[in-house]
């Protein structure tokens, strides 16, 4: 795989994550959508750590801006933290 192809893969994963987040936010009235999108997001997090992180380092960004949020800062964890 060429460097350009890898960077394109990373870009698509980030785009997918944004879309999945939007879909997840819109899904709360439908458990079948919300629960499955939640799992999709957890898988996308794995793609971020496996693909986007090293690509950002290879691109010379030092990984500081790999286009991802801090891990686990998804809805449940934030709500739980806020409630406590």
């Amino acid at each position, binding site marked *: 795989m060429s460097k350009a192809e890898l960077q394109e893969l990373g870009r698509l994963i980030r785009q997918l994550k944004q879309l999945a987040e939007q879909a997840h936010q819109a899904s709360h009235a439908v458990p079948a959508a919300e629960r499955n999108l939640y799992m999709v997001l*957890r898988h996308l*997090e794995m793609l971020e750590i496996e693909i986007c992180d090293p690509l950002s380092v*290879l691109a010379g960004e030092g990984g500081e801006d790999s286009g991802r949020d*801090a*891990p686990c800062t*998804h809805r*449940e964890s934030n709500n739980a*933290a806020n409630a406590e």
Partner: protein
Amino acid sequence: MWNPILEKLGPSELKKVQLLKLKRILAWAYGRSPFYRKKFDQAGVSVDDIRSLDDLPKIPLTDKDAWLAAQGDCGQGFGTTTAISERETVRYHQTSGTTGKPIRLAFNHRDWNWWLQCWGYGLAALELSREDRALVCFPFNLFVGWWGGQDAARLMRCCVYSGGGMPTEQRLQVILEHRISVLMGAPSYLLRLAASAQKNGIRTSDLTVRKLVCGAEPGGSIPAMRARLEQAWGAEVFDHLGASEVGPWGYECSAHPGGVHICESFFLMEFVHPETFEPTRPGELSRLVVTSLEKYSQPVIRWDLKDLVRVSDQPCPCGRSFRWVQGGILGRADDLIKIRGVLFSPRGVEDVVRSFGPVSDYRVVLSRRGEMDELTLRAETALCGTEGEPLKNDLKAALKVKTHLRFGIELCPPGTFPRQEIKTRRLIDLREKENADEQG
């Protein structure tokens, strides 16, 4: 390879990835885990003090005892050890607790997915494919053991058979009927399974098993045990290393360099002197200190595993840049004894003696002559007199290579040592007794 982007990174780039992950997990742990917040505050260390991987030792070590104290008593759940709310926990596991209270393990969905990624590296390294049928020989209880291996094998699109809750004969039936190609299990059990096949008139050479994934106990990296497994099954052996508290951190590749790769994108390893905790050089016997870079439910930062390893600085022919530890886990720091200035692990003797067929059992006697510590191996064997001389010489030479120590060898007739059902103590230390006799 599971992820050639990471597994082929050069050392400096890998360090950058590790530092990126380290900063994230430290900030997370400080913000969310009362256990680590207290630890950092007490040591006067802030997350911003860790600017490079070399700064890591500024953070104090964590070990099982401190963790258990923070976990609290029964009924207190995870105590201060988690960084997520209990509502977010979707998997509960625990350690066996054979040496005390069990450690309670919490996983959210994300961390379980990560756990499977760790396994993904290992299963890809043994070239598991969708053509494979894997039988997992595991009771599927609260021990995390093979749960991850099973789910990750599905991720690899291999067909997985959960071999929990079935007797050995039934497992053999599954292997036969379903043409199982991969077995996952504890090495001692896989040997027992082969013996049972033989007892039931099944020739393992007629079976389709071609790979064994060993884990959950030492053995997969012990040369004598590997040889017995390979011979018993006619299959390739792959060791898999991990600890319930930190994650599945090591896997063997099909180039079999004589050790196990560290999954360095997920685990930051420090190799330190077993007693002084000073950093060691490659090839030196080292205590393993682990930071799990992607474990967010219960962060693991500078965990003193007390396992002993020797990290290699040699490249592996498989092309992975992740480093590998020679011979897997070489022993426990708890069991180390200093003899004539050399650190000695009884596991090394076990490895050597088990590779000598004519030796049925043994004891290691540690005594003192004047100021000198002396080591004697008493080996139980049917060979005696001049017939036993070559065995004595070979044992002496093999022990010297493995332990860097000189052993006296005594051969004893079969039946000398009592057979015990429970764990047998094979090391007899007479030094304290001799000291007391001298003083008394």
